[in-house]
């Protein structure tokens, strides 16, 4: 079976349909009178995870927000289309660095939040699927707890379940694990790789090892205005073992490239 077919089978199992590839063309962002990036093109291959690395302030988050359709009021523009020629902003789910759980809702309430906000009824079938997802992220039995009673890792697991509940074929993640301790992060990376495998994923991260573990392709965004360099394609399929000598060699290489990229004037936060 070719990788594409595997992804399609998995996508069908998840009920999300075929995960489209996403094409970003001529993206531009002006911020405080500066061009952060201009005529930036980027393709996220369907059903694969693309990791985006780069120094802070280079515009990674802005690019992600542009793809999510969240940046329209700022000085940003660009075309974001799926390979079917339709916009993708209604096909994405968004996972941020903060879990963004609502403190007054239970775990279950947070997972089905999308249904509430769209005014869709929470049928027994919907609730049942939410429970299944909560169990899949390892929180069975905690459905009734409020977020304040959960640890940071557990909260991000709930956020992951909420993301999966949305059944969106494209998932945009902005440093979702960066606030967690090393062990929790390690566990959650494996969980996310497993649960998101059929989807088109863009993962913005600061952590080169995370990118090498999870990405089918790893991109570096650097410079002012920022460019995206040719993708690095690590061997094997994610999630990769972080102890693999090939991965460690790539890690050393990535670290060198990232520290070279850091000496850039004019950063934004």
């Amino acid at each position, binding site marked *: 079976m070719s990788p594409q077919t595997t992804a399609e089978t998995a996508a069908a199992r998840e009920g999300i349909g075929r995960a489209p590839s996403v094409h970003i063309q001529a993206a531009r962002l002006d911020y405080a009178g500066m061009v952060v990036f201009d005529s930036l093109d980027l393709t996220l291959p369907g059903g694969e995870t693309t990791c985006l690395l780069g120094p802070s302030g280079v515009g990674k988050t802005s690019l992600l927000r542009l793809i999510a359709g969240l940046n329209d009021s700022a000085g940003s523009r660009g075309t974001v289309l799926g390979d079917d020629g339709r916009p993708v902003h209604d096909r994405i789910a968004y996972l941020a660095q903060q879990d*963004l759980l609502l403190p007054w809702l239970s775990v279950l309430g947070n997972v089905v939040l999308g249904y509430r906000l*769209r*005014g869709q009824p929470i049928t027994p079938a919907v609730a049942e699927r939410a429970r299944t997802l909560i169990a899949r992220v390892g929180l069975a039995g905690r459905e009734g707890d409020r977020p304040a009673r959960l640890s940071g890792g557990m909260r991000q697991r709930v956020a992951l379940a909420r993301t999966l509940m949305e059944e969106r074929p494209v998932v945009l993640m902005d440093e979702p694990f960066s606030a967690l301790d090393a062990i929790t992060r390690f566990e959650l990376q494996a969980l996310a790789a497993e649960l998101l495998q059929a989807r088109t994923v863009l993962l913005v991260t600061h952590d080169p090892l995370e990118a090498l573990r999870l990405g089918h392709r790893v991109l570096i965004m650097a410079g002012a205005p920022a460019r995206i360099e040719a993708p690095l394609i690590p061997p094997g399929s994610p999630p990769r073992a972080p102890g693999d000598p090939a991965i460690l060699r790539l890690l050393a290489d990535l670290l060198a490239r990232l520290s070279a990229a850091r000496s850039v004037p004019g950063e934004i936060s």
Partner: protein
Amino acid sequence: MRIVRPLLIFAGLIALWQLAVMVTGAPHYILPGPMRVLRALSGNASLLLDHATVTVVEILLGLVLGTVLGSLAALVIATVRPARRWLLPVLVISQAIPVFALAPMLVLWLGYGLASKVAMATLIIFFPVTTAFFDGLRRTEPGWLDLARTMGGRPLHVLWHLRIPAALPALTSGIRVATAVAPIGAVVGEWVGSSAGLGYLMLHANARMQVDLMFAALFLLALFAVGLYVTVDAGLRRALPWQPEDGRLTAD
């Protein structure tokens, strides 16, 4: 200790009061001692209770009405853009008018009875509730709104399930302020023109040099105001158990 400490403070204040009476040697018609006031309390119990009931009803009605109207105004201002442009400046400027100066007018228009005092309490409560709730509605965590947008949330549902609950902690601080100022509105209304209530009784007793009765009325008013505040505060805490004590919404 949670019960003992307030009692000790209370006893300490009474002792201080007694001490002030003994040290200054003020005559009882200027500063009556605690025992004298206690006698006035028990001797005029039914009279005091009648007037206190009137004031309590005024305060509670004003509190409910002011909170409801203030919340509605905040909702309208926060959700209807033209209303924000036109109403918000009016609301802010109207606060420069001292509400107490309106009391004689309210009595003229609404009469000596309950209505003018309830209106006074409502007016004085309206603004803190509106500003606090509006502020809360305006400051919804941007990340939550982003999330709602990516989920394809509908404006009314986002308002009901996200923005209003998120603004409730702000609303409760507005209600706390309102609870503290509601008795002021009612008593000022009574002072300006009334035929019943603790404020009326205080003015009346003062004019007839029944200073101990005036103190008794004041004592009852203070007791009720503190009791109301403690009750409302505890009720709000219970209603929003997820609200962190320090006002932050997310624990790190």
